[in-house]
């Protein structure tokens, strides 16, 4: 086994996930929120691949690839929405978009 131990991967993944989560919760620009979501997804991918390597099995890597595919489609939809907002001159601030409140 080469490289760092598994706990370093876990710690890095946790830092990345927390960064992403804080980004989603604190930022108001939808572009940044989308980026933060990507960071969270990739922290999960990192864990999948790390454990896949630890156990010497490939299914984790396969799963990581499918997560990427899903993430790509999600970005397409999200960016599409943001572009649509931009075209309609809607201010890019999620706190202003609260027509669904009860």
């Amino acid at each position, binding site marked *: 086994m080469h490289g760092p131990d598994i706990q370093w991967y876990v710690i890095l993944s946790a830092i990345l996930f927390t960064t992403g*989560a804080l980004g989603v*919760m604190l930022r*108001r620009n939808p572009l940044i929120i989308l980026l933060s979501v990507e960071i969270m997804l990739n922290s999960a991918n990192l864990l999948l691949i790390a454990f896949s390597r630890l156990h010497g099995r490939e299914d984790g890597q396969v799963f990581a690839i499918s997560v990427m595919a899903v993430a790509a489609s999600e970005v397409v939809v999200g960016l599409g929405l943001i572009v649509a907002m931009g075209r309609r001159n809607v201010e890019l601030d*999620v706190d202003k*978009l*609260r*027509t669904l*409140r*009860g």
Partner: protein
Amino acid sequence: MKIAAWICLLLPLASALAITIAGTRIPRRAAAYVSTLTTMGAFVAAVVAFFDMWSKAPHARAAATTSWTWLSAGQYHFGLTLLVDQLSIVMMLIVAGVGSLIIAYAVGYMDGEDEERRFFAYMSLFVFSMLLLVEGGNLLLLLAGWGMVGLSSYLLIGYYQERASAIAAAKKAFVMNAFGDATMALALFLLIKVTGRLDYAGVFAHSPHGGTTANLIALGLLGGALAKSAQLPLHTWLPDAMEGPTPVSALIHAATMVTAGVYLIVRTHVLFENAYIVQDLAAGLGAATLVMAGLIALVQTDIKRVIAYSTMSQIGYMFVGAGLGAYPNAMFHLMTHAFFKALLFLAAGIAIHAVTGEQDIRKLAGVGKLMPFTKIVFLIGSLALVGIFPFAGFFSKDSIIAAALAHGTYGAIIWVACIVGAFLTGVYAFRLYFIVFTGEPSAFAREHFHAHHDKEGPLSMLWTVGTLAVLALVGGFLQFAPVWHPLTDWLAPVAAPITDPSNTQEWITSGFALAVGLAGIGVAYVLYVARTVPVPKALPLFEKKFYWDELYDVLWYRTADAFSRMLGTVIEVPLVAGAISAMAGLAGASSRELSVAQSGLVRTYALFLAGGLAILTLVFLAAR
């Protein structure tokens, strides 16, 4: 013979289906001819089967044919079996024969109706159902036919569907018949439980003699027979059923369907003999019905209703015959009654048809002067009904009354009732005849009468009525018990009589019945022609039909209505409706409170999500 029986059964069904499927693609007249020709074809098949049967030895005449197993339930299997024997062939000939005459009559009567196709499809359906009832080889098929004749009767009573009274009458007939169907079904359940089968021979061989079970079985069957044949206490639907077109009244509510109850008792006479109390009850109810219906018929003013009450009364005679065990006599009267009662209805139909559908005898008064042919055939029918020699009723009715004389004290009481009934028959039948067909035409009749191409009606109506008049004239000579009795001999292997009046009793009864019948005619003559004695005022008891409708109204409708209203105020409003509105209010209030949490801020949602996840993680860690 078996093939002929199948053809006889299936031709009317084919006609009903063909007319229904063809719909508006065929002209209205075509439906009438299809229905007439197929019913005549069924009659020809029945005649072929009859001669085939005749050529065999008396005990080799019955034949059963099973096409396939119709119904299987566990260990019970019931075949689609036709049983053609001496009894069912008689019924087949009557149903298909009288049926084809009446449907041929309807070709003229219904000409110009908007929905002729529907009418003739229903008529064919009825003939099929009735043939299924009489040809069915087990009690289950009989019950199926029983229900289907009830259905076609319902459809045809309500034929004029734009008339509220016709719809009400149809519903009334259906409900009362459904009651009879239910008691019959219960009797069949008991039979299956006791004998494990429903074919006639097996049931007769294995059913118990005497005891509660036998009585209950016979009582259930009797309930069905009473409802179908409009006998006390399930009779109130028949007069209302006159809302249907006149050919329907003639075919279903006079000649065939209403006599099915008599056929049932004769067919299952073994079960009734095993429960002689119930059989005596049948005779008693028949006697009560025939007197009561005769009294009501005295004061009715609707020509068809008078004939309807006379039908109830005549079926009462048949019930007396079947109840006392004189089965051939009951079947004989069933046959002659089919002839002369169909004749009376159809002749009345010609008169009604010629006077723009009027049925009130006071308005029809004297119309006979304008239509001599109808007058003569109606006179023949009335004489046959009253039982004047040599018309059909004389032979058949008197033989039933004679059977009562040969049945001990109970029979003697019934004999008196029958003689009283014969007197009443003379009065009401000739009241009708004298008012409608003799004397000067009323202003109404003169104004509204219009001849059909200088004839009294379409040709199809005249020749069929003429044929029935001939049958009513000569049909009785088939059997004259003191001298010759081919029908009794013919039916002996299936339904041998258990009451056999002596020749003396026959002669005495015939003399009495003829005398009181003539006396009745004399009374009617004095009251309505000579008018030397004023007509007595009608008793309200008779005009109100012995208050049966009012009794049932109070007993069932008002009780159920009051009970439902009580349930409505006590249970429906506070409990059911209250509980539902309380639940709705609770859901509304709580969701209004909870909607505060829906701030619309996605970031808040994410925070709650993360916070919840953190708490869950802590909980799981602590729980470890």
